[in-house]
């Protein structure tokens, strides 16, 4: 399974993720510990902002 790192917007495979974090019943995957820590600090901010990263490159 592929996921999007909500902090940096990178596409990562579940098995390659450096860390994961469950928030409000959903598991998020991260490319690095830094992203994971960043997310833990303020999950809501990244879930909102993250959506700008997730737009397909147009």
């Amino acid at each position, binding site marked *: 399974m592929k996921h999007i790192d909500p902090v940096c917007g990178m596409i990562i495979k579940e098995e390659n993720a450096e860390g994961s974090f469950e928030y409000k019943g959903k598991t998020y995957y991260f490319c690095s510990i830094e992203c994971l820590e960043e997310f833990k600090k303020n999950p809501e901010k990244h879930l909102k902002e993250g959506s700008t990263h997730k737009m*397909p490159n147009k």
Partner: protein
Amino acid sequence: MAEKTTTLGVKGMTCASCAVTVKKAIEKTPGVVNANVNLATNKATFTFDPNIISIDEIAKNVSKTGYALEVNIGKEVDELALAKKRMLLAIALIIPETVLMLIDMIWPNAIPYIDVISLIVAFPLIFIAGFTIIKTAFKALIHGNTNMDLLITMGVLASFATGIMKIAGMNIVNFAFIGGMIMFFELIGKYLEALAKGRASRAIKSLLELGAKTARIIIDGQEVEVGTSNLDIGDIMVIRPGEKIPTDGLIIEGETTIDESMTTGESMPVLKNLNDGVIGGTINQMGSIKVKVTKVGEDTFLSQLIKLVEEAQSSKVPIQEFADKITSYFVPIVLLLSISVFLLWFFFPDTGRNIVTWGAKFIPWINPSLNRTSMAIFASVATLVIACPCALGLATPTALMVSGGLGAKNGILIRNGEAIETMKEVDTIVFDKTGTLTIGKPTVTDIFDILKDKSGLSILASLENYSEHPIAKAIVEKAKNEKIELLPVENFTAIPGIGVKGSIKGEKYFAGKPKEIFNNNSTPAELGNFVNKIESEGKTAIILMRRNKLICAVGVADTIKDDSKNLIDTIKMLNINPVMLTGDNKTTANFIARKVGIDTILAEVLPKDKLDIVKELQEKGHIVAMVGDGINDAPAIKQANVGIAMGTGSDITIEAGDIVLIKGSLGNVLKAIKLSRATFKKIKENLFWALFYNIIAIPIAAIGFLHPVIAEIAMAFSSINVITNSIRLNRVNL
């Protein structure tokens, strides 16, 4: 045995002898089973046992001969760009040289120290622009090999040396300018050759370009665009109308039509539903679909296709072995010849002078007043240069390359180069009926319904819907195609070998073969006629009864493909005798054979007998091509002189045939015949043109009539002529 076949790039090959040397070096390595080296694509394909030898060790052996295997793929050098650079340098250097040469010719002795200047001007052209040519030649020489660059190098160096000898005080004409000129034209020729090679291999590149660059996949519920190389098995792709399918997969949502002409050569779009497979590189037309990725990278259909085409291009046509043999003896012979020419001119100058004086009357560049050493060098350099059999090495591979690309575009893969040569001699084509001349699965061909509301088929199909029998499936499919609604059935029972029973809307029905029912009932005349007609055509009749009263009958048969009749007619026109083989009974076989126009029929043949039939035909002196669907016909296809396997679906039957027709359209059999004939003709033409130049020109050069510079231009032209001749294969109308 765990043998592995690998294709790697080879660097430094400039001529056909190089290819032969590299091939020998790879084959000499213990653990290597066989090797093929293609000069036109700069690639080596070899089979080896990885338990005995590693690729690195094979590469080491190759590098000993002065060439290099590109073990790390991806660092491919742009040969064309390099050749262009060298050519531009050569052009820049040739301008002052030409000016000086002209001045010296018109006003002899006008330029002081002309001999020294000529060396200074020719030096960068020969030793800087032409560095790689000289390097390749010497590398080969050190390892005891000879190649065509060596011929050019020796010619150029001998010319340059005359300049030095002149300065040293010898009585000799200074040919240094001519040496520079030869190198200049050699570099121009090399560039044009690289350019033409690029055009010839464009067919494969165009296959590669068929692949989509990006895909849209669903990640965390959102569509994200990714490069196709980042796709993994299991990813869900979203494909909109008009987009290319990024990679092979299964439709999990939506329905559409897809243009699969790239894989089949057939232009009709194919309807695709849930669970249907799609092929990367084909074009989605009508609907939006979601596709689950099933294959990525090298496993995809497109990659397999490219691999097969590349393999086919490096396979050898027997006629090429003859060319290779000539090439491997050619260079040493030419060296000896050139030395003899030199010696003859040197020791018997008077005989030569008589010939040259006569020739000077009509050939402007001959100068009978040259002294013996100068004349000897003039003739031997021209001999060296004109003899270079570069074109010989390009004759077969370039033709195969163009034909491979052309075939692939039409759904034809010629896997074995030998087939191209054998195909022109084929006088008998054996067709396996099922799946080749016919569709290969039963369909409903006739319906006889005595009910007023014509509901017979609906009831019959509803009953058969519960059965797994192929005939039952054919009936259900017919109903679905006619948009007939199926009804629920109660108390369904299958009576094996006889038929099926069940109740619909409270009425009891029976469906099955007429024989079983006629035993218990009198046959209505009209039905009897219908059944007799159906069975005389080799079809199967299925009847439907309601409470012992007959209400409907259908005929089921494997149907003939639309293009079968056309194909057989054309084949007969080509003076090839068609033969039909089938495991079916004689009645069915005869009916189909009559319809398509085949006179020789062998019915009720067991799979193992197919092989013997092909053998028997061969023993009678026939050259046999066998067309089959590649699975049960494999032994017969192997036995035939040319085996033609019909690929099924999106799997390419790799091992079966010499020629593979992707998604067996029979028209492609004809195209394959045309393509092989055209390709072989091209190869023969190429070999003729390549040899023609050498055979005509060597004697002319030896007697001193040929100017070395003109010899070089002729050689470059010969190579380019062969390549462009191959490219013209693209114009063949398949």
